[in-house]
């Protein structure tokens, strides 16, 4: 494998660009070009990384990572438990697609800001690049503390982006966004620390250390380092940070305001990437590290997700502001992501990760288009604009295209992921492919209505904006920034790559799914192991096989209120390992059971 620290270069490039922009005193045009240049250079570095990644995808099996880098950051020896805080990067099949999505959208968002940002260019582009670096850091991090640092740091640039270049209520929006998110993540912080402290009980390479390394934190559960109660509380602590970020119903109240007030590029990045940090966190931390709690709280998460899907869709339906409508549609779509995750089936998990990417692409593009309309008419109210298809045919094409992608038209990206998520949710309760997940048909049916509602509100929006009699605000379109009535060549080149990506993921998602599956299967295995452990716990401390059988027998006999057959079947289903034991049970023991 390449010895170049590709990921470090990837993270450093935008940060370097940000420092250069902040420190120099160029004219706006140069700054714009430089910022775009730096983001494209980052993309180029990422393409190199991708090339290496594609060569070695075989190594991804069983939770492997590629392009890993590891350096010591803070360490102190000489004590019983040394301190090892690391700078550890790596990519796997979960982070790679999300990272590529980020890498595609951020340069486009920067490019889209060329006309819409009219003041304080230097700070704007420096902050955009800083945000870019922090987002990449979250996806690359293989150390919980580094993950948290980047996760938190994304707040600062966006806070300024909303607060300085946002709409009329920008200050309220920025404060609400920042404080809401920070309040949640402070509890997550306490959880991170508790995990680090717990991780110092894990023996790794013959030694113990106080560390936040994901690999070691993942061992915690296998070694029984976290009791069920601890897992429950930690899950709640991480939930506080992640659920607000996602945002899961009922913690979504900051989102519409932040989206509406943010500048276009800010909305794009917020919807496409920052919301995904929450779902990514659930997948990266909550599920694999606290599998017991994830199963126990799975139904709660499922209910919140379904309520989010339906509520978000209904709320989107009644909006008159296009941007607010798209914002509420995000609440609805992110519900699907979580549903797919907590159904604990491979189909659902794959669909969920794919959904994150697809939602980023189509919603990001929708925000871009809304921004382009806004730049021309300075309004987003559906009452004031209408019939734009005649005035702006190219825009109309893209708007219809991304609407179709968003509502899941077969052949476009949204369909694949929605389908997988719903399949996963439907079969969640079934046991023929391993263990039963916590969700089931009862969750899938209301969620499916979300798709129907999605089609309704999106098409309703398209009809009002694009078709019918032409309706323009009195002043006509604003041509001040070199804009034409229909989309300019620059704007077309911004939307076209996203559209191509949508088609690609809709027609041939296999390569991406092939990356994901080997990385997702360890997550799933951990959850499945929880059921195994139920059985192991029943036989804990018993050495010989005979003793194990009788221990099982005792356990079963203890629950005399339920029929024995039922219990044996239950165990057999839950854990494949338990099944043969039940079958090979000695006759006398079976007698004892009766």
């Amino acid at each position: 494998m390449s010895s170049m620290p590709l990921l470090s270069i990837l993270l450093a490039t935008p940060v370097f660009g940000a420092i250069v922009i902040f420190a120099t005193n160029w004219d706006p045009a140069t700054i714009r070009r430089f910022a775009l240049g730096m983001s494209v250079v980052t993309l180029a570095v990422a393409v190199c990384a991708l090339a290496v990644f594609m060569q070695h995808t075989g190594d991804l099996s069983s939770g492997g990572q590629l392009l890993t880098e590891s350096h010591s950051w803070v360490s102190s020896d000489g004590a019983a438990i040394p301190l090892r805080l690391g700078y550890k990067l790596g990519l796997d099949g979960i982070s790679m697609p999300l990272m590529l999505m980020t890498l595609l959208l951020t340069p486009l968002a920067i490019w889209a800001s060329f006309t819409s940002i009219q003041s304080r260019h230097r700070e704007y582009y420096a902050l955009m690049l800083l945000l870019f670096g922090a987002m990449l850091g979250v996806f690359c991090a293989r150390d919980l503390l580094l993950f948290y640092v980047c996760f938190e740091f994304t707040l600062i640039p966006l806070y300024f982006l909303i607060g300085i270049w946002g709409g009329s209520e920008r200050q309220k929006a920025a404060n609400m966004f920042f404080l809401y998110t920070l309040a949640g993540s402070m509890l997550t912080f306490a959880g991170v620390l508790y995990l680090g402290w717990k991780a110092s009980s894990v023996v790794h390479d013959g030694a113990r250390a106080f560390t936040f390394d994901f690999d070691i934190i993942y061992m915690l559960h296998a070694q029984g380092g976290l009791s069920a109660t601890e897992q429950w509380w930690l899950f709640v602590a991480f939930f506080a940070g992640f659920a607000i970020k996602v945002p899961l119903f009922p913690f979504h109240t900051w989102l519409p305001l932040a989206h509406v007030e943010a500048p276009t590029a800010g909305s794009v990045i917020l919807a496409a990437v920052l919301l995904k940090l929450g779902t990514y966190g659930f997948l990266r931390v909550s599920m694999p590290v606290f599998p017991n709690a994830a199963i126990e709280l799975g139904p709660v998460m499922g209910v919140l997700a379904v309520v989010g899907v339906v509520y978000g869709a209904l709320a989107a339906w009644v909006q008159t502001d296009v941007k607010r409508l798209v914002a509420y549609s995000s609440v609805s779509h992110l519900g699907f992501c979580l549903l797919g995750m907590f159904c604990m089936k491979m189909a659902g998990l794959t669909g969920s990760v794919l959904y994150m990417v697809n939602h980023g692409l189509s919603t990001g593009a929708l925000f871009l288009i809304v921004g382009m309309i806004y730049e021309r008419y300075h309004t987003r109210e559906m009452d004031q604009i209408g019939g734009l298809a005649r005035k702006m045919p190219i825009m109309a094409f893209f708007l219809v295209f991304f609407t179709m992608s968003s509502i899941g038209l077969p052949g476009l990206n949204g369909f694949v992921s929605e389908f997988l998520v719903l399949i996963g949710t439907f079969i969640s309760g079934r046991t023929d492919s391993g263990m039963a997940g916590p969700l089931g048909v009862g969750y899938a049916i209301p969620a499916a209505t979300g798709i129907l509602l999605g089609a309704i509100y999106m098409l309703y929006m398209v009809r009002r904006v694009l078709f019918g009699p032409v309706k323009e605000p009195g002043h006509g379109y604003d041509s001040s920034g070199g804009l034409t009535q229909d989309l300019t060549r620059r704007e077309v080149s911004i939307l076209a790559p996203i559209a191509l990506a949508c088609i690609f993921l809709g027609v041939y998602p296999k390569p991406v799914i092939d990356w994901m599956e080997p990385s997702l299967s360890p997550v799933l295995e951990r959850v499945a192991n929880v059921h195994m452990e139920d059985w192991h716990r029943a036989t804990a401390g018993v050495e010989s096989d005979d003793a194990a059988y009788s221990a099982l027998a005792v356990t079963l006999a203890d629950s005399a209120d339920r029929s024995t057959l039922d219990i044996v079947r239950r165990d057999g289903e839950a854990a494949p390992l338990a099944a043969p034991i039940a079958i090979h049970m000695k006759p006398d023991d079976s007698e004892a059971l009766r």
Partner: protein
Amino acid sequence: MSAIVELLLPEILLCVGAIGVLFLGLSKEFSSRAVVWSVLFLAGAMFATYKLAIAANGDEVFAVASLHTGPLTHYVRMIAFAIGILVVLACKHVPEAEERGEFFSLILFSFVGLSLTAIANDLVLLFLALELVSVPTYILIGLSRRDIRAQEAAGKYFFLGAFAAALTLYGFSFIYGAAGTMTIFSAGTVPFQQGAYHSIAEWFAAGNVYDRMHDPLLIVGFMLSLGGLAFKLAAVPLHYYVADVYQGAASPITGMLGFVPKFAGLIAIMHLLSIVQWQIADSSVYWGIWIIAAATMTIGNSLAFMQYNVKRMLAYSSVAHSGYLLMALLAGPGASGAGSPLRNGVAAMLFYIAIYGAMNLGAFLVLSWFRKPGTDDSDESAEMLEDLAGAARRHPWASLALAVCILGLMGFPLTGGFLGKLYIFSSVLSATADMQAHQTSLIVLVVIGAINAAVGAAYYLRIIASCYWREPSGKVTTSTCMGLRVALAVCAIVVVLGFAWPGQLIRHSVTAAKEGIDYPRVMRFHTADSHSSHPAESVDLARGRR
């Protein structure tokens, strides 16, 4: 050179410097010689400390019974003098021409007091050192501004300080009553005789922990001295003065007030707790500190939240920070993993106070750098949120420095403040392993701390928002003082380096924290030896030490 002179070389150097600087003030010329010499003496004291630390090689030295140095002393001296240099540089423009000598001399004396707090091995000397910290600050507040509010601040600070000092001293007298000696720790070379203890620590070690911790004299003494020391820390219940005093003083002096007395108070509390070998788990002292810490954080942050004057806001934020620091002291050194600040509350506290010193000072220095027309013809430092409005457009670097320091106070990643909070919270969580009985209350304390950090963010953000969002107002100018600019830049850089490259500071804070844990064990060794009650343990400890 006699041993005692050698031991106190940095302090002696500084005292000589302080007196010398006082004489420089006699010159009628308006010059910055006082500043230069103060900085040189502080740097000299740092160098002497460095040499002493190398020579001591991590050992602890008792010169006479009442003086004691070790890694902790060196750490405190280094941090104190380094911050001292920044304070002196930043104060270059503060005093009137005819008061320059006195002003810088008093600053130096205050820092001597701080380092003596760490050296004192005697309750009386400890008290004197604490007063040496505070008495110059009473005067400095009054000298720093011509404003009537500065006089009011000095008066308030003085009267409340005198009250708190009396409280501390009263508490010390109870501890003396319990132990029959003023010495805190003894070298243990003199054989122990029944009934006459060489030090309080020896007295404590000679008895059963439970009995000692329920000795009414000791508990009353502890509670009273903690109450008095709360004034130094600006902790609840003696936090009322903070806003008025901090607002009244000139900004660089306010920055100093936020650090020097706080550090001194924390070290004094550290001394008290190591007397009882940090065995506070089953006594009312635990709950005393718990309540003070929780109340300090919460009240400090709530009051700061209501402020629109940045100086008052930062004043209450410094109250809140005392709460975080006390939290770390409550966690104590931790039995199992003293080697890392993540598990060792004392090391976490020592690390955080160093970073806190820089970021707190930095924030006040930015305020001082932005000038606005004062009540008379002179200008004064920016105070209100409006004064900072739009500063980022005109002064991007100063605003960046302010943002860095404020984010540090908020405990945000990419600043040392984040690591500091990380260490404090995690040491408290780790302490649950040592204090089984208090598991829930410690976790509750961390959650209170986390919520407070979030509340804190709300008002810190107002400062940044004002700086970056609002339209510039015309009135604000900037200071031309070079010293201030250098000090400000150093503070901001330290805050960032505290995150990016904290290795050295962590290593030294860990070593320093070990001292506070180790020397009670020496005591146990010697007393145990004379009683020969725990021979095996004493051998172990002796081997572990040297």
